[in-house]
């Protein structure tokens, strides 16, 4: 750098020289840039890209477990064949997709409602935001234990509340459909605030003139929401939804603790199935195939979503 500074007067004298100097200068800066970013890129490549490739290789091999390790013997599609013929895998796939769509939809509606309420608050919005961040920052294992205690079949607080109002003793985690719904409620409690916080932040950034104009025109608050607020908020909502969908596709902690995937396999997500096949049945090949299918789901989900989202944005720009 000192060299460049010393040569500055000379550089000014000749235009061609300037160009050469600038080129070497920017090359130098580019080298520094690579030096600065190499550690991060190496870390990411080694721990994410390399294992994902390895996972793909496992899923396409005959893996045999030996005494203290494993060995790969030849290329095969049998792991995927096994997967496609397994009703457990098909159920896990359907369950993961259905569960994701249902919970994210509820979270979106509830989260937007909460955001609209908070946006009207003139006082105390800061503490309310902090309160919303509390479930978001909670360890999922803890919230799963908490909800398990709330749903408990013999002494749970919900049992007591339901029987107090004369609704008998309902089953929460003991049979398949109620278990799915109960898990959704626990999930919605924990992640709706995340959606709400993002939407509040989006609402605050909207231009106030548009709303003033709508008020002058005498638009009802219902019309204002659907005609103005919602379209303007769409990019914000889209990102919140995308984050949530991708997270929910990897659903693991909640069913692992709350239901163990049961009763039966009724709450077994793809990630939980993959974990069980791999670490409880010690079946690496099929387990890797399940993991690859979960990854594909995430990729397809995000591509689809981005396409729909882009199409919508494009349409608006045309109008």
């Amino acid at each position: 750098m000192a060299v460049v500074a010393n040569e500055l007067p000379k550089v000014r004298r000749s235009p061609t020289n300037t160009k050469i100097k600038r080129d070497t200068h920017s090359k130098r800066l580019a080298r520094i840039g690579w030096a600065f970013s190499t550690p991060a890129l190496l870390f990411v490549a080694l721990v994410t890209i390399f294992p994902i490739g390895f996972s793909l290789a496992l899923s396409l091999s005959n893996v045999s477990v030996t005494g203290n390790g494993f060995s790969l013997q030849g290329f095969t599609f049998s792991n995927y064949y096994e997967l496609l013929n397994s009703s457990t895998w098909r159920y896990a796939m359907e369950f993961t997709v259905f569960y994701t769509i249902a919970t994210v939809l509820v979270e979106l509606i509830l989260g937007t409602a909460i955001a609209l309420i908070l946006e009207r608050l003139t006082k105390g919005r800061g503490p309310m935001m902090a309160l919303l961040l509390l479930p978001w920052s909670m360890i999922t294992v803890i919230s799963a234990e908490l909800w398990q205690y709330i749903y408990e079949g013999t002494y749970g607080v919900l049992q007591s509340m339901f029987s107090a109002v004369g609704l008998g003793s309902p089953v929460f985690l003991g049979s398949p459909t109620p278990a799915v719904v109960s898990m959704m409620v626990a999930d919605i409690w924990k992640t709706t605030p995340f959606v709400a916080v993002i939407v509040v932040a989006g609402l605050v950034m909207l231009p106030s003139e548009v709303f003033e104009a709508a008020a002058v025109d005498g638009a009802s608050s219902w019309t204002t929401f659907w005609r103005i607020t919602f379209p303007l908020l769409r990019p914000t909502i889209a990102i919140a939804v995308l984050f949530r969908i991708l997270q929910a596709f990897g659903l693991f902690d909640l069913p692992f603790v709350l239901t163990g995937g049961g009763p039966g396999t009724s709450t077994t997500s793809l990630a939980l199935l993959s974990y069980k096949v791999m670490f409880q049945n010690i079946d690496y090949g099929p387990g890797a195939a399940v993991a690859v299918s979960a990854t594909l789901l995430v990729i397809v989900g995000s591509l689809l979503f981005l396409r729909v989202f882009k199409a919508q944005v494009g349409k608006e720009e045309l109008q």
Partner: protein
Amino acid sequence: MSYRTRTSWHKWINPLNLAVLAVVLFIVLPIYWLVISSFKTPVNVGSFPPQYFPNPVSFANYGSAFSHYGFGKYFVNSLTVTVLSTGLVLVIGSLAGYALARLPMRGKAPLLVTLLVISVFPEIAVVSPLYLLMNQIGWLNTYQALIVPYTAFNLPFAIWIMRNYFLGIPKEMEETSRIDGASAIRTYWSIILPQARPGIFTAGVFVFTACWTEFLMALTLDNSNGFRTIPVGIALFGSPNVVPYGTIFAASVIAVIPVGTLVFVFRKFVVSGLTAGAVKG
């Protein structure tokens, strides 16, 4: 006087405040249940009908969390792994974030998109290969078994957040410093970093929270009792037949405090991070 207090009290009953109250109850009631259950006696934790307020108030669960279940060790493990991973992410990630924001490198755009794609990959995709690899090199049940993957998994998002802040710093400041003859590292350290402090806080809070709450990798890679982190420890408390809820909730209250405080104090940064990730990313 009594008339005046009554009107001011009535003034608070309106649809907006009732809605706010409903939101508060929705969030707070389960947390209330967690906290008060941790103060019930071990017997009263399972009483029916349940106690809506602990009577008598007991600290027995807190005692047993530490004495019988080794919660102190889990707390130290979590803190070690989380602090070291967060530190590493901030050091390595801020350098990369600065380079990707400011330095004239070729192929920046594809790199950034790749990072974004990687940041949404599900953990389950890498956990089994990581397990097998770490088994081979003897890393299972060590601190680095979690620190290395936590660092890698949190780098992409942290780089994106910090890059957005670096982009907002006026370019002139760097150029002046360069003309004054400062080296790139020096410019970065004494000119850029102080300016980007909010971005670094934001990334730090996110990475800390993510590491503190992570479960799947901690469960598979550090499962021996000496290296369990809080989520794994709590999930495996007790036996399949007996779930010691009181102890679990006592441990949970202690586990929620560090991140809860961090998020409360830095809530502005968290909100700005959520929207920076959301709006610009």
